[in-house]
C-alpha cells in the first residue's frame, strides 16, 4: 500500500466535502424520522463516509455504480442530486423514482447511479453486467459494485467475481466491511478472517484497507479503477469500517459489543479527517465551518422542497410496470 498514489491536498478537501455532505445528510434524515416527518426503513451509513468519498473522486459521472439499501453515502459521493433524493425519501412525485422506489431503490442514471437493491448480494451480478456493457462500449468506463461483509457469503458474490475475472471486466467490487450483518458479527457468518483473501479464488487482486483512512482508500480505489480502465480486469477491495447507528434505525444495538463499539469510535474517519485538514493547513476551522453551513443550507432547501411537493397520483400504479401503460 506504500506504493499507492496519495491524494493531493485539493483531493483531500474534495473527499472531506463529500463526507460532510453524507454525514450531515444522514443526521438530518434521522432528525426528520425522529420527528415523524419521514417514515421509511433507514439503514444509516454514519461511519462509512470516507469510503465512497475517497472512491468517487476518481470516478466520472458516466462511470457506473450499483449499491444497496445502505447506500445513500455511495450515492451522494457519486453526485446524486439532493433535491430528488429527499423528494423520493418523502415518497413524492418529484422524487427521482416518482416516489415509487423509496430509500432502497434510489436511482439516477445521469450520475451513473444505475441500480440500488434491497436484496443482499444482488448488486454484484448486475454491476458485472454493467461492466460488460462498459467493456463493449470501449470508453474506458468502469462499474463499481458496493456490498457488505455479510453479502460476501451469498452465492451471487461467487458467481459475479468468477465471471468478472474470466471476462476481464472493468468492475471494482467494494466490500464495505462494517463488522456486522444485521445482528450477526463478521466471524459468526464468515469462514475467513479477511474477505479480500477470497479474491484469490478467482485469480483476482484483492486488498484490505482501512476504509476510514482517505489515503489508503483513495490509493486502493485509484489503482483498481486505473486497472479496470486499462482493460486489465476486476479488483476486490475490502474497506474496513463501522456503522455507528446499527443496522436499522431504531434497533436496540444490544448485539454490539461495547468495547468494539468504543474502539470503532476512536477510529471514526470523519473527525480525524477534519482535524487533519486543519493540522495540515489544507483548510482553516473557518473554511470548514463555512463548508458545513453551505451544506446545511442545501439540505434545508432539498428538505423543504420535498415536503412541499405532491404525492404521486394513484394512476402511477399503472405506469412503469411496462413501457406501455397497463389498461
Amino acid at each position, binding site marked *: 500500500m506504500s506504493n499507492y498514489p496519495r491524494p493531493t491536498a485539493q483531493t483531500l478537501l474534495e473527499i472531506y466535502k463529500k463526507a460532510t455532505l453524507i454525514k450531515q445528510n444522514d443526521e438530518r434524515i434521522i432528525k426528520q424520522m425522529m420527528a415523524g416527518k419521514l*417514515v*421509511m*426503513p433507514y439503514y444509516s451509513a454514519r461511519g462509512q463516509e470516507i469510503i465512497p468519498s475517497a472512491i468517487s473522486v476518481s470516478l466520472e459521472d458516466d462511470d457506473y455504480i450499483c449499491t444497496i439499501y445502505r447506500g445513500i453515502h455511495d450515492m451522494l459521493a457519486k453526485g446524486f442530486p439532493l433535491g430528488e433524493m429527499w423528494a423520493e425519501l418523502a*415518497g*413524492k412525485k418529484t*422524487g427521482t*423514482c*416518482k*416516489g*415509487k*422506489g*423509496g*430509500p*432502497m*431503490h434510489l436511482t439516477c442514471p445521469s450520475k451513473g447511479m444505475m441500480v440500488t*437493491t*434491497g*436484496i*443482499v*448480494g444482488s448488486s454484484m451480478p448486475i454491476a458485472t453486467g454493467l461492466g460488460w456493457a462498459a467493456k463493449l462500449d470501449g470508453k474506458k468506463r468502469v462499474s463499481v459494485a458496493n456490498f457488505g461483509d*455479510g*453479502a460476501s*457469503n*451469498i*452465492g451471487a458474490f461467487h458467481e459475479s467475481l468468477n465471471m468478472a475475472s474470466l471476462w476481464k471486466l472493468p468492475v471494482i467490487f467494494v466490500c464495505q466491511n462494517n463488522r456486522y*450483518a*444485521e*445482528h*450477526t458479527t463478521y466471524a*459468526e*457468518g*464468515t469462514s475467513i478472517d479477511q474477505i479480500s483473501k477470497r479474491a484469490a479464488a478467482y485469480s483476482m487482486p484483492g486488498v484490505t484497507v482501512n476504509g476510514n483512512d482517505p489515503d489508503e482508500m483513495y490509493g486502493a480505489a485509484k489503482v483498481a479503477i486505473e486497472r479496470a480502465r486499462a482493460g486489465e480486469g476486476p479488483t476486490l477491495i475490502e474497506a474496513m469500517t463501522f456503522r455507528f447507528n446499527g443496522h436499522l434505525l431504531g434497533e*436496540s444495538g*444490544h*448485539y454490539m459489543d461495547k468495547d468494539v463499539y468504543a474502539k470503532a469510535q476512536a477510529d471514526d474517519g470523519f473527525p480525524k479527517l477534519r482535524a487533519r485538514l486543519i493540522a495540515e493547513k489544507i483548510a482553516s476551522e473557518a473554511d470548514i465551518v463555512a463548508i458545513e453551513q453551505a451544506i446545511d443550507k442545501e439540505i434545508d432547501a432539498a428538505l423543504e422542497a420535498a415536503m412541499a411537493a405532491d*404525492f*404521486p397520483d*394513484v394512476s*402511477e*400504479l*399503472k405506469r412503469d*410496470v411496462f413501457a406501455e401503460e*397497463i389498461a
Partner: protein
Amino acid sequence: MSEQLTIVQAVNLALHDAMEADPKVLILGEEVADKQEGGVMGVTKGLSTKYGTDRVKATPISEQAIIGAAIGASVGGYRPVAEIMLMNFIAVPMDMITNHAAKLRFMSGGQTNVPIVIRTMTGVGFSTGGQHSDYLEAWFAHTPGIKVVAPSNPDDAYGLMRSAIEDDDPVLFIENLPLYWTPGPVTKEKVPLGKAKVSLEGKDISIIAHSRMVTESLAAAKTLAGEGISVEVVDLRTISPWDRAAVLKSVGKTGNALVVHEAVKQFGIGAEIASVVNEELWGKLKAPAQRLGAAFSPVPFSKPLETAFAPTAATIADAVRGIVKK
C-alpha cells in the same frame, strides 16, 4: 384457560413447545439465536438459550445453504424450521425449495421425505417497497409437494405451526408483518393443515381469504351488516392443499363468492378457487365467483400508492356491494 398472545408470541410459543416435545426439531436462519436477539422480530427468542446453539443455528446470509441444510437435516431424520426473513428473499433459494424440498419424496418413490417448515414474513403497510412486501403464495400453491399455510390470528398461528412441524412434508409458513402484534386468545390446540375455518357466518355472500385479508374482510363485513348485507368469511388458513369442501359448502349456501388476497390479482390463488367454485357450483351461483387482489405492479413505496395497492376493508366492501347488488 386460553391466554392472550400476539402472533409473534404465539409462533414463539409454538416453536418452544415443538422443540420441547421433539428433540428432532431444529431451528435455523439469519439472526435466529439469542446472541443475535432471537430473530429480527424476536419470533425465535429464547430458543437457543433453552435448547442450545447446536439445535438453534444462526446462519450466514446464504439462503440456498439455509434451505439446503434444512433439507439435508430433514432427510437425515430431523425436523428443521428454517427462516427466510422476508418472502421476497425466497426467490433466492427457489431451486432448493421447488426442485428439491417439494420433489424428493416423489422422485425417490417415497424412500425419503422432507419434513421441514419454511417460515417467512411479508405484507404491505410499512413502506418497505418493491422488494420487501410481496405475497408469493401462488408460486408454491402451483408446486406439487409443498404445503402452504398462512394464519390470520394468534390461535391459528400457534396451531398451524405445531401441525406444520409435525407434518411429514415441507410446509411454507407465511407470517404477516402488520398482524404480528395483534393480540388474541391462544388455546394451544393444534390446527389441522388443509382445513379452512368459517370466521363469520352469513347468508348473502362468502368471502374466501387468508392472512391479513381475513381481518380486512371481517371489518368489511361489519360495515356491510349495517347495510343489511350478511357476509360469511371463510379463512382458508391452508392455501395448498386448500379446503374445497368448506369453500364449496359456504358458497353453496350463500350463492356468491369473493376471493380476496393481498397478492397481485392476475394469476393469483383466487383464480384457482374461483374457477373451482364456478365449475362445481355452476347453476347454483347468483353471480360468477369474483376476485380481489393487489394491483398489477411491484409494491410501491409512496404511502398513497402503497395504500391503494392492496385490498382494504373499504375496497372489499365495494366489491361485495357490486356483486350482491347485481
